[in-house]
């Protein structure tokens, strides 16, 4: 070891650096090119399938023809339901972690719980939703059961991003507000939350984006194989885009490829739009921030 360290290296360091940097460039390219390829490929293959009837029509002929409206509406409802469950709870839990939580054993326990919630496999959330919401509480396979399951799954993302956003607000803002006679809650509500809103929103949207694309948690809790009508109450089962893609790509023989790619493109557009909105909010907030 020693002798090697002091002897002249086989390849001169500047050459090593050039080679090394190029290796990193190539690795990064290998990492991101498939992402670009996947998106472009789906757009190119899926676009011919997109027309008005496809988006607002009902599936016909065993889903081999017609549109995918029930799946689109279902995914919209599920995302909305997830937001209703996860946003108020997640944001207030994030406020607690950033503004209230003392540095003690309980807080550490909460942190461990949040980390674990984030790490539990999505299919295990599905089992949990089946056990608690569908069977034990008797909600049946329904939008309600699915939204609750997805909501709890999304919770850790929202809690963590909210806490992060609140902590980024300078301490002096709070000091000034309190010194003017505001209470703790008034300070949070009037000063800290508005300042951290873009960060919270970004986290919320990214969390919901993931929930919208999930299949495993809704598999046993609320999704229907085929349902040629729109759900009318939260206790109805529903079709959903991710599960529909799974069904038409593995369970239905003789499925026209165009409809498959079209459906994938619709889900991709849904998810990428949310992603784009989150990115724009973050960039605008970064540009405008004055502290």
């Amino acid at each position, binding site marked *: 070891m020693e002798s090697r360290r002091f002897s002249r290296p086989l390849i001169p*360091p500047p050459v*090593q*650096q050039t080679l*090394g*940097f190029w290796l*990193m460039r190539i*690795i*990064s390219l*290998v*990492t*991101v090119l498939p*992402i*670009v390829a*996947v998106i472009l490929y*789906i757009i190119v293959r899926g676009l011919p399938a997109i027309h008005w009837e496809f988006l607002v029509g009902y599936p016909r002929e065993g889903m081999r023809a017609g549109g995918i409206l029930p799946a689109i509406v279902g995914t919209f409802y599920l995302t909305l339901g997830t937001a209703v469950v996860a946003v*108020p*709870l997640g944001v*207030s*839990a994030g406020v*607690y972690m950033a503004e*209230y939580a003392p540095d003690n054993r309980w807080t550490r*326990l*909460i942190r*461990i*719980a*949040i980390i*674990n*919630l*984030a*790490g*539990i*496999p*999505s*299919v*295990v959330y599905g*089992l*949990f939703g089946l056990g*608690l919401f569908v069977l*034990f509480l008797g909600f049946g396979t329904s939008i309600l059961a699915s939204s609750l399951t997805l909501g709890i799954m999304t*919770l*850790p*993302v929202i809690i*963590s991003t909210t*806490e*992060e956003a609140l902590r980024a607000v300078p301490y002096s803002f709070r000091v000034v507000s309190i010194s003017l006679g505001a209470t*703790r809650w008034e300070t949070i509500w009037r000063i800290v939350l508005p300042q951290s809103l873009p960060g919270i929103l970004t986290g919320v949207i*990214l969390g919901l*984006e993931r929930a919208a*694309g*999930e299949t*495993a948690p809704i598999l046993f809790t609320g999704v229907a194989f085929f349902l040629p009508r729109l759900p009318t109450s939260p206790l109805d089962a529903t079709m959903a885009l*991710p*599960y529909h*893609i*799974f069904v038409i*790509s593995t369970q239905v023989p003789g499925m026209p490829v165009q409809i*498959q790619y079209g459906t994938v493109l619709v*889900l*991709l557009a849904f998810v*990428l739009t949310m992603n784009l909105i989150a990115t724009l909010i973050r960039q605008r907030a970064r540009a405008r921030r004055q502290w």
Partner: protein
Amino acid sequence: MQSRAIYIYQERVINLIIKLSGYSSILFVTLILLFLAREGLPALSKAEISSLFGTRWYPIEGLYGIWPLLGGTLIVTIGAMLISLPLGIGTAIYISEVAPPWVNNLLKPLIEVLAGLPSVVLGFLGIQVLAPFLRPFLNLPTGLTAFTGSVLLAMISIPTIVSIAEDAFNTVPPSYRQAALALGATRWQTIWGITLPAARSGVLTALMLGVGRAIGETMAVMMVTGNAPVLPQGLNALFMPVRTMTATIASEMGEVATGSPHYHVLFFIGVVLFVLSLGVNIAASSVSMKTRKRSERVLS
């Protein structure tokens, strides 16, 4: 004066609600564990223990050996890490140490897009594009193998690995690099000799959370690994069909009768998955609890 009293009362209620929300995470983890155990532990009495830890998964005949499924998860995960670890760490090094800002403004959003891609979309492309491509390429009887699953899982775990590793590199104090450069090291020598070793606990965390992500992934793996619950044997098992624990739950839960031994065994697999992910996450967070940003870890 009275309005002031109401005001204080209101504030107290709000503070209480916030505190309860804060503690809700503990409640949910407990509930999840409780309901998994409630439905899963009866498997130990309803199915024969010897069959449960046997090497055959054949529910119709009451054979519920979880080794083939555990083996399937293991082999797919190892394959995924062999691909995603070099790619993920390399990309993280490039982003934090080498790339100019304009490149990062392209790379980072792309990685974030990958994090948001639904796994069912990747599974679909796995069936449509990747499997037909790999089959003649590797000269296999079928394209739906553990390896196909590994490639997709690698894509799915890359965002986690990149963001955590990048974080780890960013928390290495600049003075370390400055000292190395001042001693005449090249930037590349500094990366290899100083930054990477200094960030090794973060790299280890990235690996573990990547593993956690891979173990828990369901849809993509279920769609492309060929659905064959056989015990993987030897190295070429990577190029044979397998089935993971997650895929087994997802594909069979819809067809079992509530309360049957099969039903309880599927929940029991859920308990095993829960314990596995618990172990991975606690280990990962104890490696480097202090330096990393939490949201980054959770987000990807």
